[in-house]
């Protein structure tokens, strides 16, 4: 297959806080939920003790979520609703995501897609949830039964079709994408073709197979594309310059590698996110990485996933590409289009 038909850029011309993150993180990845209704073999939570460790805090509490959303909304930051389980299992999932949109956040939901009904689709689309990402990993029932153990293929397809249909009908701004892990037994190009051309999603995210190192028992041999994006001897990790992670207890971890929460950059229950973002902990990591000494930090030295992060081929690129596809499908210009102002002042509405 022509997976690398054109060279994809991963490095940047210069490194440091991204301009959009100079005041506040561009993205806050929330461990919104720990329980799951699936047992995917590539999932770090299926292959670790972490879910057990969060039995006392399976869901992010409403008050904590709203505190995060209230502060993040002022900066228009992205809340990535993810974590150790299926977000739609949160008893207040719809209500909280709608709240986050109301207070000005951008919201990206990562879901296995098994739990949507028409009402939840309409609620999320109506609120303008920015990105709804179905983790699909397959394009046929047999493969799906292996890589998404415990879930039903027909339910996934039905729910994705319904979400797309309602999105198109309502001309919602929500981007509907899917993702698949590039792993043994999965034909990633066939998955892309099925979901983009067949089902009609806006974009397929191809994810590297990650092991999360010390956190899990995952084995890198399952990857079918282990080629690195970054030379970690030279290039800083991009995540500490754009995002942070928060668990259901309000603890801020340095990055998505630390899913066991061994680091504590601060706690959202007792400090502002802005202060944590500019605090001693993040400064320590950024200074070390910018000095080419990220590997002096034990956790970064042991991180097998740093090399798969990219300064350019990343979530922001997905947002742009998915938005372009959505706008094209709906036959009008989208929020990222340079000519939006012209259209809004002219014939749209």
């Amino acid at each position, binding site marked *: 297959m022509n997976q690398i038909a054109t060279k994809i850029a991963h490095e940047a011309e210069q490194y440091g806080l991204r301009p959009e993150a100079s005041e506040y993180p561009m993205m806050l990845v929330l461990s919104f939920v720990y329980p799951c209704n699936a047992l995917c073999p590539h999932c770090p939570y299926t292959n670790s003790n972490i879910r057990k460790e969060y039995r006392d805090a399976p869901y992010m509490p409403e008050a904590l979520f709203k505190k995060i959303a209230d502060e993040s909304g002022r900066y228009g930051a992205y809340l990535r609703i993810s974590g150790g389980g299926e977000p739609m299992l949160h008893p207040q999932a719809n209500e909280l995501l709608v709240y986050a949109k109301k207070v000005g956040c951008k919201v990206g939901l990562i879901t296995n897609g098994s739990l949507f009904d028409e009402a939840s689709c309409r609620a999320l689309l109506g609120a303008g949830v920015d990105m709804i990402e179905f983790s699909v990993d397959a394009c046929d029932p047999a493969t799906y039964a292996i890589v998404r153990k415990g879930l039903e293929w027909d339910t996934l397809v039905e729910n994705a079709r319904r979400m797309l249909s309602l999105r198109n009908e309502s001309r919602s701004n929500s981007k509907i994408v899917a993702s698949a892990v590039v792993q043994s037994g999965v034909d990633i190009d066939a998955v892309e073709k099925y979901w983009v051309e067949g089902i009609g999603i806006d974009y397929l995210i191809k994810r590297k197979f990650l092991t999360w190192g010390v956190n899990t028992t995952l084995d890198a041999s399952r990857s079918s594309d282990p080629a690195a994006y970054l030379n970690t001897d030279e290039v800083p990790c991009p995540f500490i310059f754009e995002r942070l992670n928060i668990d259901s207890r309000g603890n801020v971890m340095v990055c998505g590698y630390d899913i066991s929460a061994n680091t504590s950059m601060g706690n959202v229950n007792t400090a502002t996110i802005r202060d944590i973002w500019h605090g001693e902990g993040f400064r320590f990591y950024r200074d070390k990485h910018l000095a080419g000494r990220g590997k002096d930090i*034990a956790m970064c030295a042991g991180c097998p996933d740093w090399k798969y992060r990219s300064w350019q081929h990343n979530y922001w690129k997905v947002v742009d590409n998915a938005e372009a596809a959505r706008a094209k499908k709906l036959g009008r210009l989208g929020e990222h289009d340079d000519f939006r102002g012209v259209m809004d002042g002219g014939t749209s509405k």
Partner: protein
Amino acid sequence: MSLKLADHLFTGPFAIDTTEVRANQPPVVYAIVAKGGPGWAPVFRVIDIGASSDEGVRFAGHPRRDGWTGEAGETLGVYLLPMPRSKFSTADRERMAAQLRSQYDPPRGIVA
């Protein structure tokens, strides 16, 4: 939380003085670990590694308990790796503990 030692995922930390593996529970290989450094960049140091006997182990009364001390600013905890009798013998557990001891060289073994 989790701590991986030589590809084995241990669960912990549990408080040393209140943790016990009883005879009717799966035997374990255990690691006594000191966590130091700032909260945002912790350093884990292996203080001791051992295997529980078939009778279990009570860490507060362990013969080497007095030797398990951290340096200033460190907190100590025990991490456990269950090794069920159905799959592992006493000799297997002791062998694994010995391998981990030789790899991490407690009490100074830094976990990267």
